[in-house]
């Protein structure tokens, strides 16, 4: 099997598992307990918090562990009670659905225009911020989860900081994969999910700049300094810290490998298919390493994914099939692609464990699936 869906999830790092496993078995103390077994768990949680903080240039007291990116995004949005929120049209559902809920409560939601490049323009943010006198929050993801485009977060953050507007970035696809420093980015909130950087599923974190933490999410105990009550997932938190440190240590090495792997895919694809038969969304210089969203004309993205699965290749489609009907990619529609194009996209996303040889094999599987689907349809 070739796993090429690392934007969906990643394999848990062995180092993270080794470091965290004792906290599921022998060192199972509740981190709030007063005896040594509990103190040991508390120390492990705080070490992980310090590691996470250091990895993004934050202070430990600015890190709140969560269940993942969706929780962090919902938490940040829930802090807005009035005024306006500015966001992009291609945010994760946890952001746009959160915005929909805010709209029902009277908060005005404004969406930035974005063209087929898939990159938000700083000048559009500036224009909107000048126009919206009641702007409370801007929420723009760091890297789009479907097409992999990197957004100009630092430029936007610098501008918004000068205007005193709070800025949130959903950095789920960026943390542990791109160099990030919350100070340089100028963000007030940053959300992350551990399973995207070889950590465990069900754990993530929210960075909230000191002094602007959102209201408590869960009331009860004093865990997460009273902002998110509930016994800590010590295993998950320890594994998160270990996985992030490991990925940050090898950030450039991993990125180079992922870039080489995606290039191998696209080069081989160029040998096997005609330029008129497919295109890649966004330019290479604006995409995160290892990610490409490829539109194969005349196919359905879901059929491509299924036939690739037959060949032992795991990729994703932005379009969804939950009722027997193809639903086009919401992201591609927002960028101005046609409905047919938005139904025909397949995302390939490599990680640190993939190799260029695998990248070339993925291209061969793409070409196989493309010819099977288009060949069958062409006989009608």
């Amino acid at each position: 099997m070739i796993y090429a869906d690392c934007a969906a999830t990643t394999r848990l790092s062995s180092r993270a598992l080794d470091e965290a496993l004792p906290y599921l078995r022998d060192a199972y103390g509740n981190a709030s307990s007063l005896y040594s077994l509990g103190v040991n768990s508390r120390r492990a949680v705080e070490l992980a918090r310090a590691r996470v903080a250091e990895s993004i240039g934050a202070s430990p007291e600015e890190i709140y562990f969560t269940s993942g990116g969706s929780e962090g995004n919902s938490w940040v949005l829930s802090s807005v009670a009035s005024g306006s929120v500015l966001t992009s049209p291609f945010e994760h559902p946890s952001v746009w659905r959160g915005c929909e809920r805010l709209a029902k409560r009277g908060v005005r939601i404004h969406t930035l225009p974005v063209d087929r490049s898939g990159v938000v323009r700083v000048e559009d943010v500036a224009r909107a911020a000048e126009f919206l006198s009641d702007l409370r929050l801007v929420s723009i993801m760091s890297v789009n989860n479907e097409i992999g485009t990197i957004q100009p977060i630092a430029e936007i953050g610098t501008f918004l900081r000068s205007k005193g507007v709070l800025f949130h970035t959903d950095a789920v696809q960026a943390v542990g994969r791109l160099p990030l420093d919350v100070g340089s980015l100028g963000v007030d909130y940053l959300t992350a999910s551990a399973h995207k950087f070889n950590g465990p599923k069900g754990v993530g974190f929210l960075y909230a700049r000191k002094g602007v933490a959102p209201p408590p999410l869960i009331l009860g105990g004093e865990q997460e300094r009273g902002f998110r009550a509930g016994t800590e997932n010590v295993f998950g938190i320890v594994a998160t810290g270990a996985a992030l440190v490991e990925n940050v240590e090898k950030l450039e090495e991993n990125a180079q490998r992922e870039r080489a792997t995606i290039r191998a895919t696209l080069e081989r694809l160029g040998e096997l298919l005609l330029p008129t038969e497919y295109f890649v969304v966004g330019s290479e210089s604006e995409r995160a390493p290892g990610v490409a969203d490829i539109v194969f004309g005349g196919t359905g993205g879901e059929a491509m994914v299924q036939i690739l699965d037959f060949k032992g290749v795991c990729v994703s489609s932005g379009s969804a099939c939950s009722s027997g009907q193809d639903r086009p990619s919401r992201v591609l529609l927002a960028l101005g692609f046609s409905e047919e194009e938005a139904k025909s996209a397949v995302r390939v996303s490599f990680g640190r464990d993939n190799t260029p040889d695998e990248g070339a094999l993925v291209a061969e599987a793409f070409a196989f699936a493309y010819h099977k689907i288009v060949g069958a349809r062409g006989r009608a």
Partner: protein
Amino acid sequence: MKSKICYVCGKEITKRNDVGLNKKLIAKDTKIFYCLDCLAEYLEVDVDFLLEKVKEFKEQGCALFGGDDS
């Protein structure tokens, strides 16, 4: 369900799940259909593999497939 005719062998395709496989793996609006045997050969897999995929698609709640394989 209106039956379909296999593009390759001319066999009548009467099972909903066989039609569903064509729609799932070729196109929702496909105008041509393959019987299970010919579809497996075309996609270079075996029939049992496709039948296993039908189970997966049902578990995922895909409306193209029915519970009774009729």
